[in-house]
């Protein structure tokens, strides 16, 4: 956690965006370690692969297209700092009311969790209860998540893919008629 804080401060101070991309990968990797410590190995897998791997690669790809030095704003932004500090303080104040990590009396352990733990072996089967909750009890939610990811990829495809094709098609010939523009 201390490493994460140090990385975050360095991230905010740095102007070189290449270093920022690399450090955000480091931040994700540290977050993955925290997840492993909290016994959430599934989340750690995802964080390490997406946050430290794919997101870093995508950021580097963006840097190749743009520039790798951040623009310096002349005036010091005071109002955003106040807003961020206030929001952070309110959030931290909110967590004070939450039950401690691993508290057996926490409400989350008394709603449906005991039923999952006791019955999922007989009702669904897999020894990994997380899998049976995600895939069977909460099947709708997981379907929604997959649809979100599909929509994200389709959105990128539509936005950037068509732009690339249109640019490639119009650059050599300098034609302006695009059939998609009329619809």
């Amino acid at each position: 956690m201390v490493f994460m804080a140090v990385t975050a401060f360095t991230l905010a101070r740095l102007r070189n965006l290449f270093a920022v991309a690399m450090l955000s990968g480091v931040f994700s990797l540290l977050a993955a370690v925290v997840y492993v410590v909290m016994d959430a190995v599934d989340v750690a897998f995802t964080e390490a692969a997406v946050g430290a791997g794919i997101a870093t690669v995508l950021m580097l790809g963006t840097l190749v297209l743009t520039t790798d030095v951040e623009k310096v704003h002349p005036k010091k932004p005071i109002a955003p700092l106040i807003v961020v500090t206030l929001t952070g303080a309110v959030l931290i104040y909110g967590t004070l009311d939450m039950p401690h990590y691993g508290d057996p009396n926490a409400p989350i352990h008394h709603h449906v969790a005991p039923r999952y733990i006791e019955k999922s072996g007989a009702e669904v089967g897999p020894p990994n209860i997380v899998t049976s909750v995600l895939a069977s009890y909460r099947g709708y939610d997981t379907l929604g998540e997959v649809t979100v990811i599909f929509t994200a990829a389709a959105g990128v495809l539509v936005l950037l893919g068509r732009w690339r094709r249109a640019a490639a098609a119009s650059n050599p010939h300098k034609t302006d008629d695009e059939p998609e523009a009329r619809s």
Partner: protein
Amino acid sequence: MKRKAVLRVNAKLLIPLILLFALYVQFHGDFGPGGGFQAGVIFGSGFILYAIIFGVEVARRVAPAWLVRIGLASGVLLYAGVGVVGMLLGSNYLDYSVLAHDPVHGQHLGILLIEFGVGLTVACSMITIFFIFAGQRPGGEGR
């Protein structure tokens, strides 16, 4: 990246292991940690590593755009289709108990299928997004 021998050799050693681990996470998700999301992400990052080291054009030849797009859509379709099959067999949407004679076997089969759908869609969307970002570059060839 054509002449970096260390990177190429290491990538050749690592990529099969990454892909194999992704498949393990995918199909062993019932028993150990993991599942479709994790497996898809790991598979996608393994493939992206391949594309970075050996060049985007080579990777595009391995997985052409139409194949990736078909995978992208068919993952979601597989997931939703399993739900529809359950409905046709006389149960609720996304209730897998009717897929086999034994409800537990049915649940097992349904979870296996939908996790495969999840993994397919996630891996294909990661690869798609990476290809599109990589294709934006004026030169087009890998770093």
